[in-house]
């Protein structure tokens, strides 16, 4: 991969390729995105040194990178837990704010973090967890072969899309309701301009 993309781009891509292109190709709402990211970074900067919580070593705001995937980013939390061989193994944990359930793209996002950790540390990262919803529930995510393949496939697609700098057409669905970019997306506008022009010319 000759270009590294932020993990958030993969996250956007998994949610909706068009949303991802709007943000990362068309640079829509760059300002909002960056101010939001800036705020997050600010919060994370305060996260400080690794600590212990309930006997588990926990590091917050952990910078990540993978050359194979062409991704970089920051993990919310990485814990060290005894792995299958008894040695301490990195264990990525994501916190989802106020969402009722864990979606496929959340699992892939977490798995991408695991692949980054594996590449950086030369160890295996077999599983992680997502905390979500109110009341807080925890879902274990096992990074099995199909999940890993899905991450690699989507990463390749993401890189191709950004490289071509083309915005894919909208495929409207229920995702659109929660999308903050609906205004810039204009999912209704596709390829019907000529018919529209002819109507405008009608007497």
């Amino acid at each position, binding site marked *: 991969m000759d270009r590294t993309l932020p993990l958030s781009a993969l996250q956007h891509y998994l949610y909706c390729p068009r949303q991802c292109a709007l943000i990362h190709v068309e640079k829509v709402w760059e300002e909002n995105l960056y101010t939001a990211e800036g705020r997050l970074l600010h919060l994370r900067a305060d996260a400080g040194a690794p600590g212990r919580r309930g006997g588990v070593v926990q590091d917050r705001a952990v910078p990540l990178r993978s050359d194979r995937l062409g991704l970089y980013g920051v993990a919310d939390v990485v814990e060290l837990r005894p792995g299958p061989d008894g040695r301490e193994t990195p264990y990525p944990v994501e916190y989802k704010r106020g969402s009722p359930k864990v979606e496929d793209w959340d699992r892939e996002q977490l798995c991408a973090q695991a692949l980054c950790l594996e590449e950086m540390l030369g160890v295996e990262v077999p599983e992680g967890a997502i905390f979500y919803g109110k009341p807080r529930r925890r879902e274990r995510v096992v990074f099995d072969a199909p999940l890993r393949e899905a991450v690699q496939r989507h990463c390749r697609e993401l890189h191709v899309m950004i490289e071509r700098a083309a915005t894919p057409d909208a495929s409207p669905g229920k995702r659109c309701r929660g999308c903050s970019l609906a205004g810039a997306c204009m999912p209704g506008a596709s390829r019907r301009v000529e018919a529209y*022009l002819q109507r405008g010319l009608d007497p």
Partner: protein
Amino acid sequence: MKKLLNTLYITSQGSYLSKDGECVVVRTEDGAKRRFPVHVLDGIVCFGNVLCSPFLLGHCGDKGLAVSFLTERGRYLAGVRGPQSGNVLLRRAQYRLADDEDGSSRLARSIIIGKAANSRAVLRRCLRDHGERVDRLAMDRALAVLDDCAGRLRRPVPLDEARGMEGQAANAYFSVFGNMILAEDQSFCFAGRNRRPPLDAVNCLLSFVYTLLAHDVRSALEAVGLDPQVGFLHRDRPGRPGLALDVMEEFRPFLADRLVLSLINRGEVRARGFVRKESGAVFMDDDTRKTVLTAWQKRKQDEALHPFLKERLPLGLAFHVQARLMARAVRGDLDGYPPFFWK
């Protein structure tokens, strides 16, 4: 969707604008201070001798606010923009398209379609509302020219022909523009467009409102990452905002011209609000200028159905929507540029 924000127009001579936290502080010569939070603004337009601190300009650049400096009479002097929004890919696509005769003529055709259709709609609306008070024959003749243009625009037209048609449509439309002025006052006689300087009150109003429209369109284009200087219908001339002029075309008849007509026809501007110089040039006095600015801001809050997107939005956001659609057309995500048709 983006929220419709306000433009801050500074007309008091000798004002000083500075930044205080997230606020613009306006200090007028009499020492009075007023504050405006930056997040409720989308631009600042300074008329005449108004100073801005560099820190305020930098802050506006960061926040994507366009700051324009005009003479007291509204001629554009300069604009200050922050570091580019970084959409260099889009701008390169725009330059490639502008260098391509075919691509340029496709977009130019869309732009003229928007202008011709909206000019026609304005004349028809006037006939419908005031048919008994206007010269029907002249109106019908002008409409016939516009209909003929519309017919020829159904097919692709070469670039030079497109430019010729733009001239024809404008001439036909302005030949009857005076018809739409229903005020009895002879000072609002209109005998054709003239500018730099405007020689009558109507041209003075038109020029001023076009300047306001140009500022808004230009900042919308910059906000989506397009280069306002490189147009398709309006070719590059140094210092001329070609693309801003292109996108303005569809808005002139129904937004700018109708605003001028209603200001005159409703008696909101008066003959005594204009000053004639020895050379024959005509200018507005301060109160008239404020009246026009207020009316422009108010007009931008009126809602309309966007004919292409089928969404209701305040007219002030239509510039942003059209800029976004233009960016889509330039990138090839749309099969052409859909102008805003006013009905």
